[in-house]
């Protein structure tokens, strides 16, 4: 049987916080994500879903266990190597958008390219992705001059500008009204159909149901990992675990 290359593969991932009294945010988490998957990580607050996303997004390090990204063990990589991986392979969408206020929409989107090896045609590349999220008319606006939904679309464009292999979205609709939220989810769905791997952290069921797979977490552990079949409008669940 041919071995499938996983984009993300974690085994017995642990994360503890605190020096004296230690809190275990993740306990022996194991799963894998294949290229092109749309995975939603759900769970109540304190379940460890954000901690998991930060480790998967190479923003934080695990206290124990193994993490392979594109087959490469990231535990042994230095801070600067992780930064390079984040720049080339990973895109982030945050709940609070995290845009630079004093920069224009265009400059915000071009920001990751500053740290990229390929710095050529930054503005042109940023314009292209802004066009794909329907914001070509807002290029020179400052971020406080556009709506919340538009801000999140700017953040999506920024995540796409370096042609990332995986996009991590942390409660992307959390600060938006339902109409804008739906618009954002449609874009994420479209990106997934275009081949982007998407890992979505959410506590809203309607956003999670856009995913092909839902991982439920509680107290730092995975309690379920289900595939969501979306055929003929019917969600049939294929329980893996």
């Amino acid at each position, binding site marked *: 049987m041919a071995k499938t290359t996983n984009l993300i593969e974690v085994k017995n991932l642990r994360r503890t916080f605190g020096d004296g009294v230690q809190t275990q945010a993740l306990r022996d988490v194991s799963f894998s994500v294949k290229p092109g998957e749309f995975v939603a990580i759900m769970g109540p607050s304190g379940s460890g879903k954000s901690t998991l996303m*930060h480790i998967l*997004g190479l*923003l*934080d390090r695990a206290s124990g266990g193994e993490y392979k990204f594109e087959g490469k063990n990231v535990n042994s990589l230095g*801070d*600067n190597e992780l*930064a*390079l991986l*984040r*720049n*080339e392979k990973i895109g*982030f969408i*945050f709940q609070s958008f*995290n845009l*630079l206020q*004093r*920069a224009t929409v265009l400059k915000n989107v071009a*920001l*990751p390219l*500053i*740290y*990229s090896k390929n*710095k050529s045609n930054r503005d042109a590349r940023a314009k292209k992705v802004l066009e794909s999220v329907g914001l070509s008319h807002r290029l020179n606006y400052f971020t406080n001059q556009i709506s919340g939904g538009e801000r999140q679309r700017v953040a999506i464009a*920024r995540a796409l500008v*370096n042609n990332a292999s995986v996009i991590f979205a942390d409660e992307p609709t959390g600060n938006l009204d339902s109409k804008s939220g739906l618009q954002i989810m449609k874009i994420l769905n479209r990106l997934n159909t275009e081949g982007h791997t998407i890992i979505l952290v959410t506590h809203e069921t309607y956003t999670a149901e856009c995913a092909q797979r839902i991982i439920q977490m509680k107290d730092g552990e995975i309690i379920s990992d289900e595939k969501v079949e979306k055929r003929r409008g019917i969600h049939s669940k294929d329980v893996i675990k």
Partner: protein
Amino acid sequence: MFQAILQSFTTSINALWSNKVRSFLTMLGIIIGVGSVIVIMSIGAGAQNLILSQIESLGTNLIAVIPGHSEEEGFASVMSGFAVTTLKYDDVQSLRDNRDIPNIIEVAGYNKGFGSVKWRSESYNTSLTGTTASYLEVESGKIEKGRFFTKEEEKNLARVAVLGNDVKDELFGQSDAVGQRIKISNYTFEVIGVLKERGVVAFEDYDDQIFLPIKTAQRMMGINHIGLIRAKIDSEENFEKAIADIKIALRGQHNIKDQSGQSDDFSVRSSAQALGLLTMITDALKYFLTAMAALSLLVGGIGIMNIMLISVTERTREIGLRKALGANNFHILGQFLMEAVFITVLGGLIGIAGGILISFLVSVGAQILGYDWAFLILPSSILFALIVSIGIGLFFGFYPARKAGKLNPIKALRYE
């Protein structure tokens, strides 16, 4: 590489521009520090130039003999505050008449003191200079009215006086002084001449003096030694030979057998040596003041470190975001270091411009006051100011920048 620097530069300008007032206030310490350094270096150079040119106007072909032994380049022992009485009037005579020192044109002896001078109801305190008839020749002085005293008057204890220009103005105003009788410490003198205005040369006001025959002055002061002998030499090229000849002559006069110089009870200096010594003193003063001004640069540097630390704290989330998007520790360190250097270099440039302007105004002011003051800006001081500015930015910006670079991306992103 160039693109990365350019990028950091633009990012830095944007960051500083978004906090214009704060950036300017931060710069102020550097502006004041660099400005002070430029002004002090410029005024120092101007003052030095003025003093040295005044001394040169006295004549660079002068040799001074001072009482007491001293080392070649060091301060004379007379400067220790004790009166040294090893030079006599006869020494002046012997140097004047010595045929073995062919390079000497003329020799003058000096005694200095202070006294109160009276004419009618007018009274004035001034410097008294007992000197020889050769004074005018040695010092290149000029008579405005009347005459200087003669060798006979010098020897015969004549009660005659020649007034400096200011003394004449203070006592006599517009009226004629020559032929008048004045009282100096209860001795009556006849004014026989007034010297042309000469000004202050090397801290000595040549116009605020009364010149008396040296023997008369010694009698009045109750002394029989001489404070200083000056010899005028035919050419600067003959300095060394003349100095050697004078030493031999005085050793003979003082019955000193030791020709090594160790037993000399006098010191011989050329005006070139005096110039060297004065340059050394003024240089030391200039560099001391510059060091004091540089202290304000240190304070300015600490201010920059403080503001940069605040800036790092304020922009913690931004740093977190940049790291999330792929900035590594060096990108962040470079950006903040660039900001600090940008502040100090811009502050330095403003300080240099301000310093040049103030120095120019000072030189104009000094010229209006009648000093022959040159507006001097040393290129080395500008280079020094620029290098120091960059250095301060790098030094004081490094700690905050390193702190920013080492921030944990997730902690930074979550910072409230």
